[in-house]
């Protein structure tokens, strides 16, 4: 058994995560923070029993109140991530074409805590999104303007905007727990240790053992999902079919940050908001706020044009 996460202590202790450990801060610069050991959450889809303990543990720890919805013909409830549901079990019934056997693929969705975070890069509000040197990407509510650019910047479609509050929400990797030497609430709760948490290197090593076990059981394409397109992630998956991430409720095969965000980031960083062409900015804003969550092909093309200076 992977060493269980310890019980929280009620003795007040100093946080081990502070502004001194910032690596990036949205729309602003920070001095290089004190380095920390990289942490990661490893989600083993082959051990996951889809019980949703991670969902209720997350709701309880983070004092979130989700609405009671309806059944829409699936076990996925709520039906999508929301401002209160920062994590969600997504259920996919997949018939393996090689064996003709049904496989019930269950994936815990939520923020991947990218090493190269598209949300942070897209964020125009100084300090609304921060990244710590241990890998945690966190939203700072007080600085958030609810513009929704983080949604556009995210290759995994994770942040959700509360229209009422004008704020963006997503998984914090339980930064408050990690700050005092504990692990995320979902990882502590997970009955089968399908979720484990620790130093990223240890997680990779643990994943190797799991992959070996899966291969011995006939999953020849078992592997680790730590996508290089976003610099690797601090939430990783063990997949029985790592050659086909897409079958796990649309996990991107090769996630990358939209080129649009690169442009945006460049503009904010070097020229400031005013220097960007008004037309492009308005167009972007329009898509970002009222368009679909996913970056569309038009967005991509627009970004390319911007990047190539053809606007």
């Amino acid at each position, binding site marked *: 058994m992977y060493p269980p996460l310890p019980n929280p202590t009620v003795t007040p202790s100093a946080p081990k995560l502070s502004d001194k450990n910032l690596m990036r801060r949205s729309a602003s610069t920070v001095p290089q923070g004190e380095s920390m050991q990289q942490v990661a959450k490893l989600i083993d889809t*082959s051990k996951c*029993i889809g019980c949703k303990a991670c*969902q209720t543990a997350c709701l309880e720890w983070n004092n979130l109140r989700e609405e009671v919805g309806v*059944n829409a013909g699936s076990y996925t409830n709520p039906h999508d991530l929301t401002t209160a549901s920062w994590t969600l079990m997504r259920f996919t019934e997949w018939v393996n074409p090689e064996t003709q056997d049904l496989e019930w693929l269950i994936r815990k969705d939520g923020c991947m805590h990218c090493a190269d975070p598209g949300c942070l890069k897209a964020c125009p509000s100084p300090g609304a999104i921060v990244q710590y040197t241990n890998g945690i990407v966190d939203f700072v509510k007080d600085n958030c303007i609810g513009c929704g650019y983080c949604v556009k910047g995210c290759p995994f479609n994770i942040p959700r905007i509360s229209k009422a509050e004008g704020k963006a929400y997503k998984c914090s990797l339980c930064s408050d727990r990690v700050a005092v030497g504990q692990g995320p609430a979902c990882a502590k709760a997970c009955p089968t240790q*399908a979720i484990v948490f620790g130093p990223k290197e240890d997680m990779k090593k643990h994943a190797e053992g799991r992959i070996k076990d899966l291969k011995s059981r006939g999953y020849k394409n078992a592997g680790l999902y730590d996508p290089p397109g976003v610099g690797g992630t601090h939430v990783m998956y063990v997949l029985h079919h790592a050659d086909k991430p897409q079958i796990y409720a649309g996990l991107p095969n090769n996630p990358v940050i939209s080129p649009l965000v690169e442009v945006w980031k460049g503009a904010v960083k070097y020229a400031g908001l005013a220097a960007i062409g008004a037309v492009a900015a308005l167009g972007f804003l329009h898509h970002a706020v009222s368009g679909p969550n996913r970056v569309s092909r038009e967005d991509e093309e627009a970004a390319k044009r911007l990047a190539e200076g053809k606007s």
Partner: protein
Amino acid sequence: MTNSWTDIKNTDLVVIMGGNAAEAHPCGFKWVTEAKANRGAKLIVVDPRYTRSASVADLYAPIRQGTDIAFLLGVINYCIKNDKVQWEYVKAFTSAPYVVKAGFKYEDGLFDGYDETKRDYNRSNWDLEIGPDGNLVVDETLQNPRCVWNMMKAHVAEYTPEMVSRICGTPKDKFLKVCEMIAATSAKDKVMTSMYALGWTQHSKGSQNIRGMAMLQLLLGNIGVRGGGMNALRGHSNIQGLTDIGLMSNLIPGYMTIPTEREATFDTYMSTRGFKPLRPGQMSFFQNYKKFFVSFQKAMWASAATAENNWAYDYLPKLDVPAYDVLRAFELMHQGKMNGYICQGFNPLMSFPNRKKMTAALSKLKYLITMDPLETETARFWENHGEYNDVDPTKIQTEVIQLPSTCFAEDEGALVNSGRWLQWHWAGATPPGEAKLDSWIMAQIHLRLKALYQKEGGAFAEPITNLHWPYKDPNDPSPEELAKELNGYVIETVTDPNDPTKIVLEKGKQVVGFGVLRDDGKTACGNWIYAGSFNEAGNNMARRDNSDVDDTGAFSKWAFSWPANRRILYNRASADVNGKAWDPSRKLIEWDGTKWAGYDVPDIAPGAKPDVVGPFIMNPEGTARFFTRGLMRDGPFPVHYEPFESPVANAVAPKVRGNPAARVFRGDMEQFGDAKEFPYAATSYRLTEHFHFWTKHVQPNAVVQPEFFVEISEQLAQEKGVKSGGWVRVWSKRGSIKAKAVVTKRIVPLICDGKPIHIVGIPLHWGFTGAAKKGFGPNSLTPYVGDANIETPEYKAFLVDIESISGPVA
């Protein structure tokens, strides 16, 4: 469970059949994932539905609900035919070599002695031959055609892979793959564990389902060993404890039994209980029955229980029927023969079959009392909730008193887990409003009833007025006081029977273990199997040392495991006839030449010689039974019987409907539907997001599984024009429900007897109170019949019809 949750990590093969451990017991299931990850163990799931347990299995085999016996006897047949038997174990530790009494026979689905009008058997031939010396007749060579082994071999022969596939709908190749994997554990160094729950019990032949697997496990030598066993996953946090303490019509704590009215005297009662050994040199544990019984009577009535009045034998009520189980209780209520009913934390309106009958029955009561921390549908059965509870309050004359009780967070005491661990917990919260502890409520009811009898007199008041009530605050007995009574204590100093000058335990002390209990009134003990849980060493249930010598999974210093802190039952059987472990890597206890010792408390007298005393000391034979003699109402071997409502005829006994020995009340038989009218095979179950009818009151659980639904295959959905997420109506002969439809690949039509059988899955967690959406439960549809032996309702297999509807009416 014969073993414990943490012991499951020691297994090589997990068979989940008749249960769904990943969903109903997720944190216990952790030990399955550990066995898989660390030992390369395999997991087989056999279930009508591809469950969340199946989603992490190495092999999933579908099975039509209600056909488990055919499947299991088919596996036994395979093992015998392919010589996959742990022979040394079978020959030495089971009833295989005993000779069955002449006259016993089985044909056409019935055993000898059947009386169709009584739906019962004369079981006098269902026994073993006893020789002139009072011992069993034995054929060690297994040549005698009437020895248990050969009788069993003949009995299972018709369950060929073809027959199994025809009955169960399991594809033959999947069945054979299951057989092969299971049969491999007949090796001395390979072990299988069986994890089951209500998927096996909630059938009209539930007890025999479990027998089927127990027989298979014995044949493979998997009982009494680490990583093996028969592991009944109890549903509720302390249903093990409530059963241990005998809160059933026919029980006395510690699995002793309430006398029947045929046992008019104490001597008659005792004459059938202290079994004499049936093998030379064998010990029979229940020869101690009188010690446990007298100590119990002393715990109840102290000085009012004397040798002169046969230890207050007359204070115990005498049964006129085998049991007043809940089905009988509600039948009597329905007949207007009951006036009052008290529900302590239970929701029968949603929990018992045929809800219409439940509502009618409760409406005939004069008074209903409920105690619960939460609202229940039962307490509000008289309240109109539209189609979800369509009643007219003005027509219901039942007086209802609803008492608010505390929940876990506010009370202290012990719960017994499925692995028989008694674990103490502490209160950490102030109860809301005026909610009170259940123990306080029960004390108040008793004390007020007693006061009325003392003041007014009345019918046979002595057992009430003389009830031992030694508590410091009589109004509010403390958990410690009650726990100490359960453990037992010495009333008069106990001396060594061989040397009266030697004091064993002084007056007033807590008994060390059940070995100290006496039948002369010198000791009192609420529940002999808990003796040792709270003795002079303190509250052993509160022990929190989680060290585990050599990582065996025993955790012997954590809490207390009954009996005697034993972690694995029948652990003597982990060693061979000479007392050496079958598998040195799974050593549990071994014979060191003079005594038994090892990681666990031996389940045998410490000095009992291995080649003399058989390991199964609870049976007078000292061995485990393939043939249960006359102890089960429906036969000494399991037989495949179809559910009372079945989509097909019984392939091995076409004339028999249901279990021939199951009790059916007048009027209920007419309420069974047939396949012409109700073509689809329904089953009911729990979902992992919910716990019965409690968690619909818990907002986050209502969020993650908000609304009542039924599950059907894509094929049936297409036939019926049902869309996933759309509405359907499902009905049986007894009622009708509306639900959302989940159309899924996880349910497929099964080919049984050449025709496709569609399955309708109906989870059970919704009602008309709480935070989740209002909904129905499967009990609006299910038949009013129980298991032939213990009356567990047939919730897992019944017939329905289904249609697409446009939407909710309410």
